[in-house]
């Protein structure tokens, strides 16, 4: 696979929820690329649209949610485009329940859910669900699938995988359960793994183990990962590239080092400032972002962040929509502070 071409390219994605009370623009024009072997972290507060973004990529948004605009271009090895015969498929054109989408979902794009406990069926064994995942996409017998399942469990560091296959998910500890879930997601060697806050439901020590495991599996299989989290610490640990989201829009994107050491957007700066540090003298008050996320029905016009922004420019930020544009060869920002700088001839 050509590493210089994106595996997944999300372009101007808009996913709206049409409720009786009004339309919620959960994702409102999101752009980002995922290259082969890259770990992209999407970070943002609850309600910023990060989960809806990845559900849209998987084509799992449920009514009344719908993708209204944009493209999700994915380089597939199982499905080719119906018209052009190209291996780059626009996933938004596929029927979400159709055969083509289903042969991508689970096989080429896999998901690790937020709550492994609730994501396993409690009345089926772990093995039943693992073997099922394998046989959905690979033409193997039950016995062969069982062997693959045991290998996969072994790979994620599950002790006694043969016995664990016949266990129920609630008989496993939190960490093992998430490992079993990872084994299931990786069962068909996906090229893109989407991890939706996979460590929020487990304790911090186990969390570190699971992150290390994901990172080493990613290197081993040369997978791409989209990692969703609200935890900047986790982002720093796993991601190569970061997408910062706020109210359904991308605020800033860039390599993880630049985002942490040279944040450009006022929102990114504010987020980084509110991380507690062991170097700050005790008794110092932790900075927070003023105000709270606006209600989805009363989105501000213009830049969604302006009511809480320290660098708010009246008449500019609340009048027009800022566009995401490259500032240097690495970072892109959606903020008027940089548009003006660019416009000035230097």
């Amino acid at each position, binding site marked *: 696979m050509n590493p210089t071409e994106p595996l997944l390219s999300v372009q101007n994605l808009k996913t709206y929820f049409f409720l009786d009370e009004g339309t919620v623009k959960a994702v409102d024009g999101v752009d980002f690329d995922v290259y082969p072997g890259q770990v992209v972290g999407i970070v943002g507060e609850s309600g910023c649209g990060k989960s809806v973004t990845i559900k849209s990529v998987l084509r799992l948004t449920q009514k009344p949610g719908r993708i209204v605009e944009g493209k999700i271009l994915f380089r597939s090895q199982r499905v080719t485009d119906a018209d052009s015969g190209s291996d780059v498929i626009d996933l938004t054109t596929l029927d979400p329940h159709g055969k083509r989408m289903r042969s991508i979902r689970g096989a080429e794009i896999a998901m690790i859910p937020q709550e492994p406990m609730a994501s396993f*069926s*409690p*009345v089926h064994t772990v093995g039943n669900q693992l073997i099922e995942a394998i046989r959905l996409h690979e033409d193997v017998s039950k016995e062969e699938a069982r062997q693959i399942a045991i290998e996969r469990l072994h790979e994620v560091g599950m002790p006694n995988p043969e016995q664990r296959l016949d266990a129920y998910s609630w008989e496993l500890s939190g960490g093992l359960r998430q490992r079993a879930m990872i084994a299931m997601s990786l069962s068909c060697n996906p090229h893109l793994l989407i991890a939706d806050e996979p460590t929020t439901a487990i304790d911090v020590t186990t969390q570190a183990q699971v992150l290390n495991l994901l990172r080493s599996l990613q290197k081993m299989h040369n997978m791409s990962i989209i990692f969703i989290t609200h935890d900047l610490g986790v982002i720093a640990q796993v991601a190569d590239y970061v997408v910062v989201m706020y109210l359904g829009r991308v605020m800033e994107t860039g390599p993880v080092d630049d985002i942490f050491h040279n944040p450009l957007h006022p929102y990114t700066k504010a987020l980084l400032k509110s991380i507690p540090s062991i170097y700050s003298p005790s008794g110092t008050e932790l900075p927070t972002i003023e105000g709270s996320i606006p209600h989805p029905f009363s989105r501000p016009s213009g830049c969604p962040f302006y009511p809480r922004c320290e660098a708010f420019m009246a008449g500019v930020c609340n009048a027009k929509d800022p566009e995401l544009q490259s500032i240097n060869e690495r970072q892109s920002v959606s903020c008027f502070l940089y548009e003006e700088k660019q416009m000035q001839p230097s």
Partner: protein
Amino acid sequence: MVQYIIKRLLLLPLLLFIFSIFAFVLIQAPPGDFVTSYIAELAASGSSVDQAQIDALRSMYGLDQPMYVQYFHWMGRMLHGDLGASLDWKRPIAELIRERVMLTVLLGAFTFVLTWALAIPIGIIGATKQYSFLDYFFTVFNYIGIATPTFMTALILMWLAFSWFGISVTGLFSAEYVDAPWTLAKFIDLLKHIWLPVLILALDGTARLARIMRANLLDELNKPYVEMARAKGMSEWRLVLKYPVRMAINPLISTIGWYLPLLFSGSVIVATVLNLPTIGPMLLRSLTNQDMFLAGAIIMIYLFLAIIGTLISDILLAWLDPRIRMES
């Protein structure tokens, strides 16, 4: 698991014993006894009875003894497998109710199967195609089913059958088979008649069960394990049937326990309207006539069914749900 079932079976006689005391006391609770209602009946037809005769009748039936003595006599006979004789019908109870119990069980079993066969698919369609035309159609159908008393449905269907086809649909047998010994022809005749009461009772049950199934499934459809199954690339129908439907049926399994006796007693009014030779109308008559041994025997059968029904649903639940199996 086996241990659990054995434990439950050992508990069965004790439960029956306790319930039998309640049953006996309750049957005795109305003022007067069989002799009182017998005399009232005689008086209504113009004849009178003197006190000596009344006392003789009472002591003949053992009604002059204290209640606990009567209970132990009754219980003692039951333990020997003798249900006693009906005071009203002057015949052994076992002989009196044997065929009726069998017909009731048959009616109940058919109704049960039809109810589940209709309600589960209707509930699944209602939940998976929520707010579609089919969902609204079944919702209206279900509300009508719940709101219409079964005897009303029975009367309407009887009238329709009579006015359109000129046939009488009461009873479970054609006239020539009522007292005939059991043959294949009689059984076929039974099947020709039993479908109507089965349909009437099943429509009522279906309406209720389908609503519960729909609500349960709607709850399950939003659970993360359903989304995970979708994320694996399973087809929608296959995953719905394998995961959420299985979970949504589980709570219904425990209703089988009280469904069994309910089918027996719940059909009393329909059975009366349709003149069915089942156990319900007989219980009603035995209670009004204070035929205490007959009423007692029928109620003991009900209780037995209630306990067995609960046991069956517990075993089924444990078999279907590993979480319950492991606990016990």
